[in-house]
């Protein structure tokens, strides 16, 4: 098998030495994994919210932007007032980003979402409106310019296990964050009281209330949690991307694709979808081109959804 694939690769990249190819292929493998972690981070928050209450949060991207701006503020404050701690501001920023997005999500649930639970189309519109309000607010407060959070040294550059082999540190960082976050959410979902409340409510809302679960509070906290996770994603993305009022809206399409493809709300499905799409995307991009890769991936996703509208992993939940 290895021999055959090596032969194919040689035919394609005959002009390169085996060492060179090896190095690039390792880096390319990592590129796919790191795209996977980006997709996963983007989609987690939305999947949590959609799975819990069938609300599609169109303002998801803006909650990521909020997390990103929170990171910028932290980096600025730390640079200005506590330069000694600058080296380690990033974990703090991550918590701040989560907190800011969580609190805002909580307030949004109270003031908008809870009135619309029985009207899914209206939640779509309402959260879309919310996304525009948030974008304009960012523009007013932070300005329209692209900004960046200043990165501590340990988050920049690359790790070089061998000559010519550069594994980006921010990529490894993203991978770490997405793995830890997914694990934390899964553990919380399956081994904590809060998670039990969420699962019971998703399965049978009325009955969950009738055994004594405060389903409204559960909804509210789940929505806020989903937003908070988006905030963490936004914070993590400052290591690779830019921050501008509209930065989040650029993620919403991919996010949506991953969540729907994965089977709307199941965490396992989201992981599988993020992995599949990311690998397809990065392999196709390597062999063809960025734009073509995107076209083929979208077509493939549409095709799969036509055959399997429920997504990869259908939730076995009634209601």
């Amino acid at each position, binding site marked *: 098998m290895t021999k055959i694939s090596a032969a194919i690769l040689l035919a394609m990249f005959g002009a390169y030495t085996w060492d060179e190819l090896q190095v690039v292929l390792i880096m390319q493998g990592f590129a796919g994994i790191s795209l996977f972690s980006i997709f996963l981070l983007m989609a987690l928050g939305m999947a949590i919210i959609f799975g819990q209450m069938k609300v599609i949060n169109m303002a998801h991207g803006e909650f990521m932007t909020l997390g990103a701006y929170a990171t910028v503020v932290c980096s600025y404050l730390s640079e200005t007032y506590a330069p000694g701690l600058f080296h380690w501001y990033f974990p703090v920023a991550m918590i701040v980003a989560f907190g800011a997005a969580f609190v805002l999500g909580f307030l949004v649930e109270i003031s908008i979402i809870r009135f619309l639970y029985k009207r899914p189309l209206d939640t779509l519109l309402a959260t879309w409106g919310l996304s525009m309000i948030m974008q304009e607010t960012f523009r007013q407060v932070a300005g329209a310019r692209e900004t960046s959070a200043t990165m501590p040294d340990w988050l920049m550059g690359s790790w070089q296990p061998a000559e010519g082999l550069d594994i980006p540190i921010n990529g490894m960082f993203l991978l770490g964050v997405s793995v830890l976050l997914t694990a934390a959410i899964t553990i919380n979902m399956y081994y904590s009281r809060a998670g*039990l*409340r969420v*699962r*019971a409510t998703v*399965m049978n809302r009325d009955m969950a*209330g*009738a*055994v*004594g679960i405060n*389903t409204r509070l559960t909804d509210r906290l789940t929505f806020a949690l989903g937003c908070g996770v988006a905030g963490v994603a936004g914070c993590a993305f400052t290591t690779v991307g830019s921050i501008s009022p509209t930065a989040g809206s650029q993620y919403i399409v991919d996010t949506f694709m991953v969540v729907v493809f994965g089977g709307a709300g199941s965490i396992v499905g989201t992981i599988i979808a993020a992995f599949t799409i990311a690998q397809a995307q990065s392999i196709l991009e390597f062999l063809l081109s960025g734009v073509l890769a995107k076209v083929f991936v979208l077509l493939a996703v549409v095709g799969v959804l036509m055959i399997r509208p429920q997504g990869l992993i259908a939730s076995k939940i009634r209601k």
Partner: protein
Amino acid sequence: MLEVKNLCVSYGESIIIRDLSFSVAKNETLAIMGRNGMGKTTLMKSMIGMIRARSGSITVDGKDVAKLDSFQRVKAGLGFVPQGRQIFSALTVEENIRTGLETAKVRKIEDWVYKTFPVLDEMKNRKGGNLSGGQQQQLAIARALVSGPKVLLLDEPTEGIQPSIIKDIARTLNELKRLRDLTVVVSEQVLSFTLEIADRLIVIESGAIVHEDPRSSVDEAVISRYLSV
């Protein structure tokens, strides 16, 4: 212990429960009987808050719960075993029981639960959906009881259960009433089962009470007539 006064419940325009009033004394077991479609389940659901009453009051141990959410009613002392059990099918047996602990004083499954329902102990890690009807019924009762209710509401507990097991359920319920100091409201169509557990019977028809008997003087013939189609 439980007092329902002038309760009216409707789905949109159609009124299901009309100006219904009854009360249940502490440690009493009241059976609500009636044919299908006469409003038994609606009455039970409106007592636990799955359906909002249009008017009237529901008082549990002196507290009016008619305007509260379900979970607050559970806190106030109601426990609910719904028609068809409504087990959380993808949760394990143990997790199902733990959902009932939300409002409990002690947030762990106490020993008496598995002692009363040994079969649940054996099946602890199975998914709720994989249990038989009778096992699910025990699970539903355990789930309702762990919150420490003063009043237990059971909606048609014998529906879809094998006759041989119905007797077991009756025996368990009687034992639990004594053990857990319970007041019980049960809706039923099976008279034999009712007679084993109830202290008093009322019959409803089209959402109103049409007949009432203490168990000591039940006229089985009259009630059977109400229950037959």
